[in-house]
């Protein structure tokens, strides 16, 4: 049984090439978008860093949610989301640098509430300044990023430490209990951050006048389904290279079901946000959808729905596709790309304004993908691929849907 991952030279090369593409795009962007065009440079960075941070954080959420639900089926590949979640510290650092430059770098084209003159002249922004101010933004960002990194690293550390334990029932109970406590605490933090404040201050405050209570959940659904797709991609990759002996198409089937269900969940939130605003038809709310539905962004708006709802719905409906490795890889890539596009249409209409071919954003995205591949492959080598002392391991091995 191959239980110790060794990074294949090809994967390493791929990750370096992708990171190179990202870096090159960043440099080209630095030259191409100067002065008044620099908005696009920062919008692209904000979009990509927040998207990729949140989809890797979805792996921590996956571990926490399945642990609290006393799920057993995921144990055979639990080390995969663990390894993906270990990309969170690096991506959190990148995002932190980006948003701090946006807030304190003397620019107000992304977050126009950072400009005190705008706020003073603007009733709405003045009223919101109790919440939308530099101090609150910074403290909330540091607090959430710090807590995410703390819990992610803690869960990973505990899991590796447990490899040195034994299989006695008391040890198993102790293992489950301490995992439950840490996961429970993480989920409280997660709900208060991703489920509430964090997407408001990082992304929704781009359109500082507009507000939507669905926004955070919408962002969560988007990144959670992409996070599941990311986990599936790594699971299939490892399986195809002869690792993860205990993972069968039964586990893949469940991951497929998750992707199917949460694609529908995303659509549900997408529609809930849209329909209430459409129904009430109030100018302060519809201004967000004006450029997206009736402006230049119209094709992207409907493409978003086509890629993220119709495609997974019809494609993953059949049992056979959920159990097919190639089909899962295909739909996982489609889902990640689709939600990347979703983030693009969340960030760009309020900042860049005009619809342009997103070569810069996409190049940066490839760089982030390379970075994630590099970090995750590196993390996968640091521990055995099967947590051999987990009391639910057997349940996962005999898992049958």
């Amino acid at each position, binding site marked *: 049984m191959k239980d110790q991952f060794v990074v294949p030279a090809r994967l390493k090369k791929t990750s370096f090439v992708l990171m190179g593409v990202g870096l090159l795009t960043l440099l080209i962007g630095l030259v191409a978008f100067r002065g008044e065009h620099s908005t696009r440079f920062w919008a692209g960075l904000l979009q990509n860093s927040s998207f990729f941070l949140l989809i890797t954080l979805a792996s921590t959420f996956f571990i926490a949610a399945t642990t609290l639900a006393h799920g057993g089926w995921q144990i055979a590949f639990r080390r995969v989301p663990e390894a993906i979640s270990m990309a969170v510290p690096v991506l959190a650092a990148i995002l932190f640098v980006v948003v701090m430059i946006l807030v304190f770098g003397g620019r107000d084209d992304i977050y126009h509430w950072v400009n005190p003159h705008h706020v003073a002249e603007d009733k709405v922004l003045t009223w919101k300044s109790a919440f939308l101010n530099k101090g609150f933004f910074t403290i909330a960002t540091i607090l959430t990023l710090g807590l995410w990194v703390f819990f992610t690293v803690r869960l990973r550390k505990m899991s590796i430490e447990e490899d040195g334990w034994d299989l006695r029932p008391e040890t198993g109970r102790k293992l489950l209990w301490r995992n439950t406590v840490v996961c429970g605490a993480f989920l409280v933090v997660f709900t208060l951050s991703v489920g509430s404040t964090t997407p408001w201050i990082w992304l929704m405050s781009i359109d500082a006048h507009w507000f939507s209570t669905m926004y955070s959940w919408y962002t969560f659904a988007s990144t959670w389904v992409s996070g599941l797709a990311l986990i599936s991609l790594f699971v299939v990759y490892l399986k195809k290279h002869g690792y993860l002996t205990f993972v069968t198409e039964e586990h893949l089937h469940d991951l497929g079901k998750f992707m199917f269900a949460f694609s529908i969940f995303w659509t549900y939130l997408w*529609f809930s946000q*849209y*329909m209430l605003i*459409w*129904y009430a*038809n109030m100018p302060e709310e519809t201004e967000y959808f004006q450029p997206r539905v009736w402006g230049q962004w119209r094709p992207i708006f409907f493409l978003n729905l086509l890629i993220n709802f119709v495609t997974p719905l019809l494609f993953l*409906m059949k*049992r056979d596709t959920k159990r097919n490795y190639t089909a899962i890889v295909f739909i996982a890539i489609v889902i990640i790309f689709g939600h990347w596009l979703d983030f693009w249409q969340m960030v760009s209409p309020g900042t860049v304004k005009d619809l342009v071919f997103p070569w810069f954003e996409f190049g940066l995205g490839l760089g982030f993908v390379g970075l994630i591949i590099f970090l995750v492959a590196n993390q996968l080598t640091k521990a055995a691929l099967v947590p051999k002392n987990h009391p639910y391991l057997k349940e996962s091995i005999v898992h*049958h849907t």
Partner: protein
Amino acid sequence: MAVKKFVVGLFDDEAVLFPAVKKVRTAGYKLHDVYTPFPVHGLDHAMGLRETSLHTAGFIYGITGTTTALSFMSWVFNVDWPLNIGGKPHFPLPAFIPITFELTVLFAAVGMVYTFCYLCQLMPFVKKHIFHPRQTDDKFVMVIEVTEKTNAEEVKSFLAAAGAQDINEQKAEAGWWFGRWDKDDEPYLRKIQTTNA
């Protein structure tokens, strides 16, 4: 439906049942059904049952619901009784979506329940022969149909070798029938000759 002859065997444990099912199939006997106290994973596969088409039926019911909702609402608000509601267009798709969704789910759910009942031959007041009183209680009951090519005595000894207890031969209606257990089951069987054996 038809009255047929069966050999019935009782099993205590699914660990004994599984190899027995496989043996019966390799021996070429016609397996009528296996009754279990709880859903046994993989038994359908071991019995050689084909994958159910219930989900295909569900999909068809679902899109029927979608079409019904959309076409009915469009007809009402555009053709039959156009109303100006809050200045909204006469074909307000976002407003139609919740109802379309609900009707899709309703059609799919109700349709699938009835189809499931039909496929399993379950309906109010409709009965099926019970081969053993404990068949869905705490015992596993295997029923083998006695065809023209089958020797009932041979099947009995075969089942005994496979670990079955309480082996007996029964003449019973194979499908569902309408009536009452106390009045119809026995007299009904006495009146009619079996079609096989």
